[in-house]
């Protein structure tokens, strides 16, 4: 070990393991996480001998698929079925073992992060039982298609049509214009054979809003796209190049009635539309993912600052005092200014993500019993914390790269790729400016209500302090 790093570790005045346990939500989760990492990383063939950067775009994808299959076989064999959702989430908060295998993420990413949670959140009991079994066993690989070429975060602007035909009891999926093509979903291009598609439901010429549909897009045997389905990859991007992001268009493609995920709204055989108790429930998946984004940002920032601080401890530069050796660059206050705030920010995101998860978990239990009171506040909170955590993480990861000078510019430093992954989060699951405007709507409503004498709740309660300011 480098002597400077040894010296640094010797002068640390707290118990490092104690802090690790604290960040992991307890000793139990540190142990579970380390066991999982050990199991996964001891599998031969999962780590690359040739750096990914020297492969072609196509080779990168093929290599990522090879590793994804190996990786998921390992994960499947180690999964503890008895763990609750709460325990699984706590374990996964700091479990980023996938980043050892995929510098630019996995083509199966959306299968776990969006496809399965949407089935869980939007499917009826019967649908959940059928699709979850298939999805968990990897009998099918799925993704989640919401964004279109013409519309992203503005869900009501989506143009993909799902027209119900009561004669055949089928939905006809159609992309009427180029701007209605689904665009961006990970794994959609050549990996997934099923896809949850958000489309506008029409019954007898009347629109009933946006709903989720389970759509088979490729033959389960040949993997060829099904008739009426146009599929492909969207091309090279700033990052995420092994995620296999794709486009999808429909030409009057028919699916059976039971393929609409009907937990929150239903279409009966005769075409009667039964609205859900609250249309906002459809957006549950997005709120869940935004909660996880805050912990993801904590992890990415922690990774970047670990690299930059260790490098700053071993790197020596300049000679401010004659006859003295070059100082460690970590002793320069400008360097500390770049880096220590990144450590603190990562902690701040962890604490906020833990807190937000506990709120989400309790609100989701309330939702299950039909209580919706706290959903708007949770939505507004997620709309604020997702943008701020991604804005700060992106800027600070870039600072970490700059703190490593020219060496930080090397792809082998892994700071550029980490930046690429973080800055993607600025846009996905709700572009940040749009989310801030959504949060503003809640804030303005709360403020106007407060002025009229209505009480303020939860994290907005402090707004009532105006009279005492």
């Amino acid at each position, binding site marked *: 070990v480098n002597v400077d790093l040894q010296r640094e570790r010797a002068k640390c005045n707290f118990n490092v393991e104690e802090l690790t346990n604290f960040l992991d939500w307890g000793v139990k989760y540190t142990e579970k996480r380390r066991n999982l990492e050990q199991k996964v990383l001891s599998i031969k063939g999962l780590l690359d001998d040739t750096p990914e950067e020297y492969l072609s775009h196509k080779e990168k994808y093929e290599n990522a698929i090879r590793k994804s299959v190996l990786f998921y076989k390992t994960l499947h064999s180690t999964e503890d079925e008895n763990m609750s959702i709460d325990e699984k989430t706590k374990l996964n908060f700091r479990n980023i073992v996938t980043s050892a295998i995929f510098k630019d993420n996995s083509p199966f990413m959306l299968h776990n992060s969006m496809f399965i949670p949407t089935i869980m959140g939007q499917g009826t009991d019967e649908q959940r039982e059928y699709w979850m079994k298939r999805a968990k066993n990897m009998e099918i690989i799925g993704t989640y298609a919401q964004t279109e070429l013409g519309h992203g975060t503005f869900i009501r602007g989506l143009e993909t049509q799902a027209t119900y035909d009561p004669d055949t009891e089928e939905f006809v999926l159609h992309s009427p214009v180029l701007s209605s093509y689904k665009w961006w979903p990970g794994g959609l291009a050549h990996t997934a054979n099923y896809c949850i598609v958000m489309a506008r439901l029409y019954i007898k010429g009347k629109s009933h809003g946006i709903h989720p549909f389970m759509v088979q897009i490729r033959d389960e045997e040949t993997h060829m796209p099904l008739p009426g389905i146009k599929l492909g990859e969207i091309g090279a991007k700033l990052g995420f190049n092994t995620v296999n992001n794709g486009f999808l268009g429909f030409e009057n493609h028919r699916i059976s009635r039971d393929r609409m995920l009907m937990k929150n709204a239903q279409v009966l055989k005769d075409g009667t539309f039964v609205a859900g108790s609250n249309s906002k429930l459809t957006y549950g998946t997005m709120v869940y993912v935004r909660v996880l984004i805050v912990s993801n940002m904590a992890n990415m920032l922690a990774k970047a*600052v670990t690299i930059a601080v260790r490098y700053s401890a071993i790197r020596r530069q300049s000679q401010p005092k004659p006859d003295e050796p070059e100082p460690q660059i970590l002793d320069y206050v400008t360097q500390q200014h770049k880096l220590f705030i990144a450590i603190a920010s990562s902690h701040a995101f962890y604490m906020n993500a833990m807190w937000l998860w506990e709120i989400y978990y309790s609100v989701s239990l309330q939702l299950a019993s039909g209580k919706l009171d706290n959903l708007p506040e949770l939505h507004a909170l997620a709309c604020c914390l997702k943008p701020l955590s991604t804005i700060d993480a992106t800027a600070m990861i870039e600072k970490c790269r700059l703190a490593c000078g020219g060496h930080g510019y090397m792809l082998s430093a892994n700071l550029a790729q980490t930046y690429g992954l973080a800055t993607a989060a600025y846009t996905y699951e709700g572009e940040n400016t749009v989310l801030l405007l959504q949060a*503003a709507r809640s804030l303005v409503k709360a403020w106007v209500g407060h002025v009229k004498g209505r009480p303020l709740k939860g994290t907005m309660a402090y707004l009532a302090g105006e009279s005492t300011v």
Partner: protein
Amino acid sequence: KAWDGSIDGIIQSFKVVAIRKISSVVKILQDYEKSGLSPEDAWNKASVFLTAASEAHGRAVLLSVYKSEMDKRAAVLSPPLRKVLLQLVDLYVTYWALEKVGDMLLYASITDKDVDELQRRYIELLAAIRPNAVGLVDAFDFRDEILNSTLGAYDGRAYERLMEEAMKSPLNAEPVNQTFHKYLKPFMRGKL
């Protein structure tokens, strides 16, 4: 109210900033509507201030949750660890107060002397955290395979790893690349 430079006092000031920005943007919206704009046009015209109000609210939430959760969760930790974690909270709050000093001057009661004091405190905090910097990042507990970085490995052999990775470049597989004979040599012999 006089400026309160404690951590809780600064967080309270961030809340005041959020309150002022929200109340101010509501007034802007109302004024636009009174001037004849439709609610939608008024919203669009005020949108820069609306996002700023949201950001201020989000910043107040981030800061206060970080502080309160740390107070709650760190209570059971050993004193040396608790001390360094609270130094980080202090650093975070101070950093953002200085980043948003314009808002503080506009909406809270900070003075130039208070700003000087915050700056001094910030530099002192950097010095206090310095001895534990490597320990703090070690505690994130990322294995080398996960960091996947020439510069960040646990053993600190950054230069050796940079060289090892450089040798993996396909261009280093042969001493002379075929483009020399194909393009460079004829080009250079052409005597420009």
